[in-house]
């Protein structure tokens, strides 16, 4: 089987004119992977499906204290009574929750070397300039290079430790800092919140935990490259970030290179808590496998992200660049509870081929003089559908709340869709709320103009789209912003002409 894969993997130079053939090759290689998983799988998996026993086993496996087990069980029982929401503008075949593995330890599986990896994926790595050792990691190849990154991470950890910053897997935090976890977990996204968040609360596998002590400014961008390579395991990531009084942290999630994952369902939860005068900046670049050009495969990404500006003068800023996944369902939100607190949401959501995204934000104004800003840039290409859904709510006690929302849609081609669903609930007459929306198209005139100056169509579309999304890219840390722009061109490849 390995021989066959090697033979069919074309050399780089030949790739360019071979897209149809490559599609076939991709299909063949994909099939090979499936069999590969079945034959040489070595994975510590529980049986498929979900019941109280599985929840207890997950908790026991992680040596969790009693309160965590109880919390998971409460979530599980509540989830049993819930139905999957049907209101988003998304169409997908039903997920069979009894046909999923809910726990699997990451053991050796996946391709043995890059020769076995989908050549289309390797081509993309090339274009994004992903370093060789990272390619293996991203493609799920088991390599020694991981050891390097582990040691690098340890160095960081020591440096952060001196400042009293805790940055560790949440499973570790549950063991080492149970008091902090108990105090904050589920306070922003309670286990009763929504179908996916409830499921996540019951079965979450792992994720990150960050605590910044009072008055500390975290000296580096904290980032998580998370990795999973077990077959058919729902991915349930859980992240909790607490910025204590007067502290600051910037956190980066994801990476620009496409991540391959056999798991179709992702239901992550991220909770942010900013106390008095604290600030959290949370940036995401999401590029999970989006399925092939015919819309087969790809990740279903149902994420609950919410931040609580609990203290006065606190600030939470979400920046997201969403280009991957077959389905994206995601509304990073801010609860502006503290007086004078600020919530921001900057988003670029790009869909191509048959991708679907229903994304936006909620800004809940509770405190006095709270302010929120929403900049959303949707980009639709191919046969994709892209919806912005946002709520601005001003509670009756939120005096002098202010919001400015700008929701722009950019269409590429004439078979895609863009939809905007802004919701406003204003209960206080002193509120000032502004909403602006535009829809535009990448015109043939623009592409031709750039062509005529020597710029290829692919680069031209990348430039136009990056220009359109500039306000959001400006919010990203520098290196991330450069990568995100390259990602635009790659993601839109083949969408024009």
């Amino acid at each position, binding site marked *: 089987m390995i021989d066959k894969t090697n033979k069919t993997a074309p050399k780089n130079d030949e790739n360019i004119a071979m897209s149809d053939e490559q599609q076939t090759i991709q299909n063949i290689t994909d099939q090979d992977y499936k069999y590969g998983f079945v034959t040489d799988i070595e994975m510590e998996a529980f049986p498929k499906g979900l019941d109280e026993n599985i929840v207890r086993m997950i908790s026991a496996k992680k040596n969790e204290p009693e309160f965590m087990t109880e919390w998971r069980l409460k979530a599980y029982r509540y989830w049993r009574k819930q139905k999957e929401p049907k209101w988003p503008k998304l169409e997908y075949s039903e997920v069979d929750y009894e046909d999923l593995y809910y726990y699997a330890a990451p053991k050796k599986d996946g391709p043995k070397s890059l020769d076995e990896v989908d050549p289309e994926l390797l081509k993309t790595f090339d274009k994004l300039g992903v370093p060789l050792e990272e390619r293996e990691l991203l493609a799920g190849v088991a390599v020694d290079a991981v050891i390097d990154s582990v040691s690098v991470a340890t160095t960081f950890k020591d440096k952060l430790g001196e400042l009293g910053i805790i940055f560790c897997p949440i499973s570790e935090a549950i063991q080492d800092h149970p008091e902090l976890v108990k105090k904050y977990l589920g306070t922003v996204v309670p286990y009763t919140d929504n179908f996916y968040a409830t499921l996540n609360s019951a079965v979450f596998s792992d994720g990150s935990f960050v605590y910044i002590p009072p008055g500390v400014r975290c000296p580096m961008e904290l980032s998580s490259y998370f990795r999973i390579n077990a077959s058919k395991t729902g991915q349930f990531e859980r992240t909790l970030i607490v910025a204590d009084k007067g502290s600051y942290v910037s956190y980066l999630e994801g990476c620009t290179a496409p991540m391959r994952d056999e798991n179709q369902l992702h239901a992550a939860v991220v909770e942010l808590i900013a106390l008095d005068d604290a600030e959290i900046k949370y940036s995401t670049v999401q590029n999970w496998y989006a399925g092939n050009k015919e819309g087969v495969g790809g990740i279903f990404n149902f994420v609950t992200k919410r931040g609580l500006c609990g203290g006065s003068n606190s600030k939470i800023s979400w920046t997201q660049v969403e280009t991957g996944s077959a389905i994206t369902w995601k509304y990073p939100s801010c609860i502006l509870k503290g007086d004078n607190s600020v919530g921001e949401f900057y988003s670029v959501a790009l869909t191509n081929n048959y991708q679907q995204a229903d994304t936006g934000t909620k800004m809940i104004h509770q405190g006095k003089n709270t302010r929120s800003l929403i900049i959303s840039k949707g980009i639709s290409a191919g046969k994709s559908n892209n919806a912005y859904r946002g709520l601005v709510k001003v509670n009756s006690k939120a005096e002098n709340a202010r919001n400015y929302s700008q929701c722009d849609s950019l269409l590429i081609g004439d078979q895609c869709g863009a939809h905007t669903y802004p919701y406003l609930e204003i209960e206080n007459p002193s509120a000032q709320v502004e909403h602006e929306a535009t829809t535009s198209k990448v015109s043939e005139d623009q592409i*031709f103009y*750039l062509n*005529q*100056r*020597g*710029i290829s169509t692919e680069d031209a579309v990348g*430039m136009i789209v990056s*220009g359109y*999304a500039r306000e959001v890219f400006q919010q990203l840390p520098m290196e991330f912003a450069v990568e995100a722009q390259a990602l635009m061109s790659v993601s839109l490849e083949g969408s024009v002409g």
Partner: protein
Amino acid sequence: MLSIKNLQVSVEEKPILKGLNLEVKPGEIHAIMGPNGSGKSTLAHVLSGREGYQVDSGSASYKGLNLLEMAPEIRAREGMFLAFQYPIEIPGVNNTSFLKKALNEIRKHRGEEELDAIDFLSLIKKQMKLVEMKEELLKRPVNQGFSGGEKKRNEILQMAVLNPTLAILDETDSGLDIDALRIVAGGVNKLRSSDNSFVVITHYQRLLDYIVPDFVHVLSNGQIIKSGTKELALELEERGYDWLLEEAESKV
């Protein structure tokens, strides 16, 4: 440089160019004049590779290459430049980085090293003086919020930076006041050399007071019905196009 033979082009089945012939040699400036709807802009677009035009027969070669088979960006990288009649706005894309990208694509194609930001800036500042453009416009998005005159100057600035061997100016004079016209034409004149050629498409003779052509061609109903020297332009200015059109008809 450029050799067009019996070029026939249609748009949505409707013939626009009906057997056009044109020879442009290095160092020459050719003016193409003609009434509205005669096919002037079609010619500019077909030569630069814009989609939507069907070449029914004939040929166009540029530096010995089969022009009509080349992608528009390859034509540009081979040194062909079109100054647009209506320059396009590209929101959010910085004018300087756009032009730097364009220049480096052309340099890469020629096997030259790409210019870094510092070298590029010194080049662009030098060339900006040619068109008396405000430096502030470099920081703005491409053509966005530019006045009509600023857009046209931006076209000439791009031309000065990209230094083409064949430049086609498509009604660059339209919408320009006399001062802007003088500046734009002055830029073109400074770029003139024995190695490069210009095809200047214009409705009015006015521009040709400033950019003096070697040859003037009158395009009507998809064909060049009369060619001459710069005196022909003056005659057209005086007598209009009608006498020529009648003359052409009586020949048929």
